[in-house]
C-alpha cells in the first residue's frame, strides 16, 4: 500500500516534465480548432442577426447588409474563444483561478492588515472634516455630508451586526427601530420641547423597548419565518406612522426638528451662537463638522460596546445561539432572554442612529424608512462579513459612497452618447458590483471570525466553520 503511494507522484511527475513542449503545441492546435468552430457558428447565426439590417422604408422594409459588423463580430468570437481556450479552459493554471486566488488572498490578508487599517481609518476619521476643508474648499460641505451619511450607515450596520452577525437572527425590519428612534425624538421635541441630547437616550430606550415587543412574538420562529415576521414588523411601523395623521403628521412628516446644541450653544448667526461665543466668523460648515463628530462618537460607542459585549458571557451566548440553539439550552442558557437582549441592544443603537438622522435632516417622514433602507443596511452587514466590525465599515463606504459616486458619472455620456443618463444606471451598476463581490467572496469581505477568548495563540476561524444562524 505504502509503495504504491510513493510511486504515484513519480509516475505523475514524468509526463509533467515532458509536457510543456509537446502538450502546448497540441493545446494550441485544439484551441485554434475550437475557436474556428465557434467563429463559424457565430458567422452562421450572426449573418441574420448582425449582418442583415431591416429599415422601414416608404415602400416596405429595406434590407441593408452590414458586412463590417458581421466580420468584426466573427473576429471577436474567434479571438475571445481562443483566449478563453488558451488561458482558462485548457490552461494548466486557469487565469480565473489566479485572479480568484489573488482576490481571496487579499481577503485573507485583511485580518492582519485589519489592525492597522482600523487605526489608520480611525485617525483619518478624526481629522476628516479638516482634511476636506483644506483639500476641497468648494466641495467640503458636500463631502462632509457624505461622510456623515456613511457614518450613519456604519452605525446602523454595527447595530444590525449584533442581531444578524452575532446572534444569527435574520432581521429584515431593522429600519423600524431607526424609524422609532427618529420619530421618538421628533415627537418628543414637537410635543414636549425636548432637545437632541435629552431625547437621544430616550429614543434609544424606546427603540430597545420596541425591540423587546418585536422579540416576544418572533422568539418561537426560525429561519425564513423569522425573516418574514421582522419584515412585516418594519412595514407595520411605517404604515402606522403614515396613517396616524393626528399624531405623526402622516405623509406630511414632522418638520422643524431642533438642531443639536453644543453645551447649550446653537449653531446660528446670532450673538449667542457657537461662532460668536468662540470668536469665530460664522460659517454654516461648523454645524456640519459638529454633526460629523456627533455621529462619529455615536458610532464609536456602538463599536466599543459591541466589541466588549462579544467578550462578555452574553456575547458568547449570542454566538453560541447562532451556532446551535439546542446545545445552548442544554447548557442552561435561557435562549428567550438571550434573543431578546440581542434584539433590544441592536434596536437601541438603531434608535440612537434614528434620533441623529432626525436632527441632521430637521425633517422626517415615513418615506425615509422603507424596506429599501433595511435591505441596504443588511447588504452592508452581509457584504462586510457577518460579525465583522471592520467589514461593516468597508462595506458601508463601498455601498453608500459607491451609490453617491455613481451620481457623478457624467463622463460616461462621452462614451454612450449624449442621450445616456448615468444616474438611471447607478442602481444597476451597484447591483452588478454586489453580485460580483458575493461571487468572489460569498461570506463577505472579512469572513473570518476572531475568537473571543484565547489561551495561547490567537487563530482566526475560517468562515466555513462558522454557522450563519437562522434564516440564511
Amino acid at each position: 500500500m505504502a509503495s504504491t503511494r510513493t510511486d504515484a507522484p513519480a509516475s505523475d511527475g514524468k509526463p509533467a516534465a515532458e509536457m510543456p513542449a509537446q502538450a502546448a503545441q497540441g493545446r494550441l492546435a485544439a484551441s485554434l480548432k475550437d475557436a474556428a468552430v465557434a467563429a463559424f457558428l457565430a458567422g452562421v447565426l450572426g449573418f441574420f442577426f448582425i449582418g442583415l439590417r431591416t429599415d422601414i422604408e416608404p415602400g416596405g422594409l429595406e434590407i441593408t447588409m452590414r458586412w463590417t459588423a458581421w466580420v468584426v463580430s466573427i473576429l471577436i468570437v474567434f479571438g475571445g474563444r481562443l483566449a478563453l481556450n488558451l488561458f482558462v479552459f485548457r490552461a494548466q493554471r486557469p487565469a480565473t483561478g489566479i485572479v480568484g486566488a489573488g482576490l481571496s488572498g487579499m481577503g485573507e490578508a485583511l485580518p492582519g492588515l485589519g489592525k492597522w487599517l482600523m487605526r489608520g481609518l480611525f485617525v483619518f476619521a478624526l481629522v476628516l472634516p479638516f482634511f476636506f476643508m483644506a483639500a476641497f474648499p468648494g466641495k467640503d460641505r458636500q463631502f462632509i455630508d457624505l461622510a456623515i451619511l456613511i457614518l450613519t450607515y456604519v452605525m446602523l450596520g454595527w447595530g444590525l451586526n449584533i442581531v444578524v452577525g452575532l446572534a444569527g437572527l435574520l432581521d429584515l425590519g431593522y429600519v423600524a427601530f431607526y424609524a422609532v428612534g427618529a420619530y421618538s425624538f421628533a415627537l418628543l421635541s414637537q410635543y414636549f420641547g425636548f432637545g437632541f441630547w435629552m431625547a437621544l437616550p430616550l429614543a434609544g430606550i424606546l427603540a430597545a423597548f420596541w425591540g423587546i415587543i418585536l422579540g416576544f412574538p418572533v422568539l418561537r420562529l426560525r429561519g425564513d419565518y423569522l425573516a418574514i415576521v421582522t419584515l412585516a414588523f418594519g412595514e407595520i411601523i411605517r404604515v402606522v406612522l403614515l396613517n396616524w395623521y393626528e399624531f405623526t403628521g402622516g405623509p406630511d412628516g414632522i418638520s422643524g426638528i431642533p438642531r443639536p446644541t453644543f453645551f447649550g450653544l446653537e449653531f446660528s448667526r446670532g450673538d449667542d451662537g457657537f461662532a460668536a461665543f468662540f470668536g469665530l466668523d460664522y460659517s454654516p460648515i461648523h454645524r456640519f463638522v459638529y454633526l460629523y463628530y456627533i455621529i462619529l462618537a455615536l458610532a464609536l460607542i456602538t463599536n466599543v460596546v459591541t466589541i466588549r459585549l462579544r467578550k462578555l458571557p452574553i456575547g458568547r451566548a449570542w454566538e453560541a445561539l447562532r451556532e446551535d440553539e439546542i446545545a445552548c439550552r442544554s447548557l442552561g442558557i435561557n435562549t428567550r432572554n438571550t434573543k431578546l437582549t440581542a434584539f433590544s441592544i441592536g434596536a437601541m443603537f438603531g434608535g440612537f442612529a434614528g434620533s441623529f438622522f432626525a436632527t441632521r435632516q430637521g425633517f422626517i417622514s415615513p418615506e425615509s424608512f422603507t424596506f429599501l433602507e433595511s435591505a441596504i443596511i443588511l447588504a452592508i452587514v452581509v457584504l462586510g462579513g457577518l460579525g465583522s466590525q471592520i467589514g461593516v465599515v468597508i462595506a458601508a463606504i463601498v455601498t453608500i459612497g459607491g451609490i453617491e459616486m455613481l451620481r457623478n458619472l457624467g463622463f460616461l455620456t462621452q462614451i454612450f452618447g449624449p442621450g445616456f443618463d448615468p444616474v438611471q444606471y447607478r442602481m444597476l451598476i451597484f447591483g452588478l458590483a454586489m453580485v460580483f463581490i458575493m461571487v468572489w467572496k460569498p461570506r463577505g469581505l472579512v469572513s473570518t471570525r476572531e475568537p473571543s477568548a484565547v489561551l495561547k495563540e490567537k487563530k482566526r476561524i475560517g468562515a466555513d466553520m462558522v454557522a450563519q444562524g437562522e434564516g440564511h
Partner: protein
Amino acid sequence: MVAAAGKEAPTGGASARWESDPILSVEHLTMRFGGLVAVGDLSFNAGRGDITALIGPNGAGKTTVFNCVTGFYKPTEGRIVMRHGPGRQAETVEEVTNSGLRWKKEGDKGIFLLERMPDHEIAHRAKVARTFQNIRLFGGMTALENLLVAQHNPLVVASGFTVGGIFGLPSYRKAEQAAIEKAVYWLERTRLIDRADDPAADLPYGAQRRLEIARAMCTDPQLLCLDEPAAGLNPRESAELNELLKFIRDEHGTSVLLIEHDMGVVMEISDHIVVLDYGVKISDGDAETVRNDPNVIAAYLGVEEEEEIDIPEVLEDVSAAAGKAGTGKGGKA
C-alpha cells in the same frame, strides 16, 4: 408512589444504592407521539455516584427517555424527580409534587420535578447536563470558548448582568480568569489542551466527543447524561472514554446516566443497567443480573415467534402500558 417504585424493582434488593439513594427517579413515565407510545409506564432509579446505563435495541425509546429527563420533551405522563443531597427525601418530594412548584431547594438539599421544568432550567438549577447522539458543539467557536459558554450562568452573575462587564469591573475579570482555569482543567483531563484555540468543528471526531463531555462537565452537573458517547470511537478511544467516565464518577462525585450500544463500555463501567425494549423496561439490575436475564437475551438476539409470546413479563409490561395509556393520570400524585 415512591414506595411503590421501590417495590417494582425486580432485582437489586434493598441494599442497592439506586434504591436507597437515588439521584434521579423516573416514575411511570409515558411519552406518546400521536398514537405511538414511545415510552410506556417506565420507572427506574439512577443511584447517586453510580454510572447507570440505559440500553436496548434501536428504537427502544432510550433517547426519548433522555429528552424527557433533560426537558427537551414534555412527558405525556409520569414524574421525574432529581434529588440534590443524600437519601430519598420522600416527604419533600410529595410536598413539592402537591404544592405545584417546580422545585424546592434548601441549602445543599433540593428536589426538582424535571417534567415541570423547561430545558434550560434543568441544566441551570437541577444541574443535569447532557450530550447529544449527533454531536452538537459550537463549531465556529474554539474549544476554549465552548467551555466558557458552558459557564454562562455563573459568569452572567459575575458580570453584573452585563452592565458591570461593559465597564470592565475587576470582579468580572477575576471570574472570567477562574472560568478559563476551569476550562483548562477539563481540557487537560480530556487531552484537548493543545487544541484549545482551534475551532471545535476542526477537531477529529473522537476529540469532539470528548469536548462535548468536557463542556457538559463545565456546567458543574450533579447528573451527567450521555447519549451514546462511544458511538464512532475506535477501541482505544473507547477505553479512554471508560477511564474518563470513571474519573468523573470517582473524583467529581458526578452521577452518570448513559445510553450506549457498545457493550464493552456498558458492561465494564456500569454500576447499574436498565434495559428497554419497545418503550418498556425489560430488565433492571447490575451487569451480572442483566447479562443473564432471558428477557434481555431475547430482546437482543431475537427468539422464535412462539417463544416470544411465552415471555410473560414482556406481555405484562406491554399490556400494562397500554392500560395506563387508557386510564390517564394515575402516575401523577
